[in-house]
């Protein structure tokens, strides 16, 4: 499927390119826009992986919810002086070393399992009705984690309200 490959490489390059731009831009709003672009590209990858429900969740929750919150806060705290400040600290060597180590680790893992037929072939027995399958999984096998996640959200909500309130 050539179309599939084109889609994957397009979204992958878009994601990586935007991610690099996000980390390097001075202007924080531009950073946020590039992160949004990365997230949308990831959503595209999900679609290409036939995870339709996750694709929509990614768009509605991540891009339409979390990132709106980010942009909102950025605009509230966006100081003009911030643009003139130094945007990077002096940890770039630490970061470079860590990046190299991480990369090496993953490539080592891939090298160890090279030639394993399990890696290259992939299951084609994905459930056709993705949304229903996820619903079944959440509400049957993962009921407890789901409830815990909802408690987590409640805690986060209360915490955010307390934190963002004016000084009492």
């Amino acid at each position, binding site marked *: 499927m050539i179309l599939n490959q084109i889609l994957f490489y397009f979204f992958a390059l878009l994601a990586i390119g935007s991610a690099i731009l996000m980390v390097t831009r001075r202007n924080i709003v531009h950073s946020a826009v590039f992160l949004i672009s990365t997230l949308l590209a990831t959503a595209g990858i999900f679609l290409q992986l036939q995870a339709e429900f996750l694709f929509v969740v990614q768009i509605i929750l991540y891009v339409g919810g979390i990132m709106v919150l980010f942009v909102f806060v950025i605009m*509230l*705290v966006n*100081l003009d002086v911030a643009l003139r400040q130094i945007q990077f600290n002096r940890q770039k060597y630490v970061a470079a070393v860590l990046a190299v180590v991480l990369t090496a680790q993953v490539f080592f893992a891939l090298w160890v399992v090279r030639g394993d037929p399990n890696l290259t072939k992939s299951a084609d027995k994905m459930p056709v009705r993705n949304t229903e399958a996820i619903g079944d999984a959440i509400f049957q096998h993962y009921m407890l984690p789901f409830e815990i996640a909802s408690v987590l959200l409640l805690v986060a909500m209360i915490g955010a309200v307390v934190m963002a309130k004016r*000084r009492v």
Partner: protein
Amino acid sequence: MTNGPTTEITTTVLGADEIILNMGPQHPSTHGVLRVKLKLDGERVVDSECIIGYLHRGVEKIAEHRSYQQFAPYVDRMDYVAAVSNGLGYCEAVEKLLGTEAPPRAKVVRTILTELQRIASHLLWLGTHALDIGALTPVFYCFREREEILKIFEKYCGARLTTHAFRIGGLQYETYDGFEEDVKRFCNDFEHRVDEYETLLTENRIWVGRTKGVGIITAADAIALGVTGPVLRGSGVKWDLRKAMPYAAYDQYEFDIPTRPTGDTYDRYIVRMEEMRQSRRICLQAIENIPSGPILGKVGKVLKPPPGEVYHSIEAPKGELGYYIVSDGTTQPYRVRVRPPSFINLQAFRKMAEGALVADVVAIIGTIDIVLGEVDR
């Protein structure tokens, strides 16, 4: 809107400090060239200051270099949406100075026209006030009825806005044929029209939510600040110069002075709506029997009032409109001082806006019913 409003924000939006927000003098809802400087804490108004004078034309100074008759058209340009009332105040003040009075017929016609003008002024207020709060439709209904009134004015004296309808000593023009019918027709239609506005607004939840409890001023504060007119009556003070010190022909007619207890924007709205009904009632009574007789009393072509001073005030649509005229015995007044109702009422703005939200400021400016031509003179 290229000449748009300017904002100065001294600190960051989220800083704990206050923000200074500058509304106007070019702003869609300051009703002219009023500039309001708001000190905000978030969206809450901590303090405010009205900066006026952008429309100052020195009307009072001009009066000192014009004869008494020559100055009469100038007063129309102060409260230009209620020119007839301004003219009435000035003419009666000069008549008082001269020691004459207008003939009975002139008085009645003056009363009718002034009451029509009050309706027109309140209609304009209602339309723009509703528009500020976001109701798009009432303004067109209001202008439809205001148009009828302006047509009567036009037929009577040829002008619609700055009418210069009266002359010192009475009237310049006899009423035109069909004047009575026109006024009667308007009054008959108008009864239902007021109900129509009320169905749109009075019980509308959003309207009530936007106006109830907004811009409260207590009776004591209102009196201390010298506030008059519907703003005072909305705070529960039953004070109307038409009853308290009757002028023109008001002592002959029956009407009520509507008041409301709390003094918020909603109460002032109700008071003005009721005043329109009362004005209609006065018009209907007056039009029934206009006495016959001359329309212009005996005043000379050259007016030379005896030296002295006089203060005469009338109940203009916006409140007490007073003229203080000092004569030195020549043909020109020595000094004319105008007590414009909106200028004095505007002083209540600071009190009303205290603790309000930014969105309420618009409603409060609207509810005071100011005309900058009158504030700045």
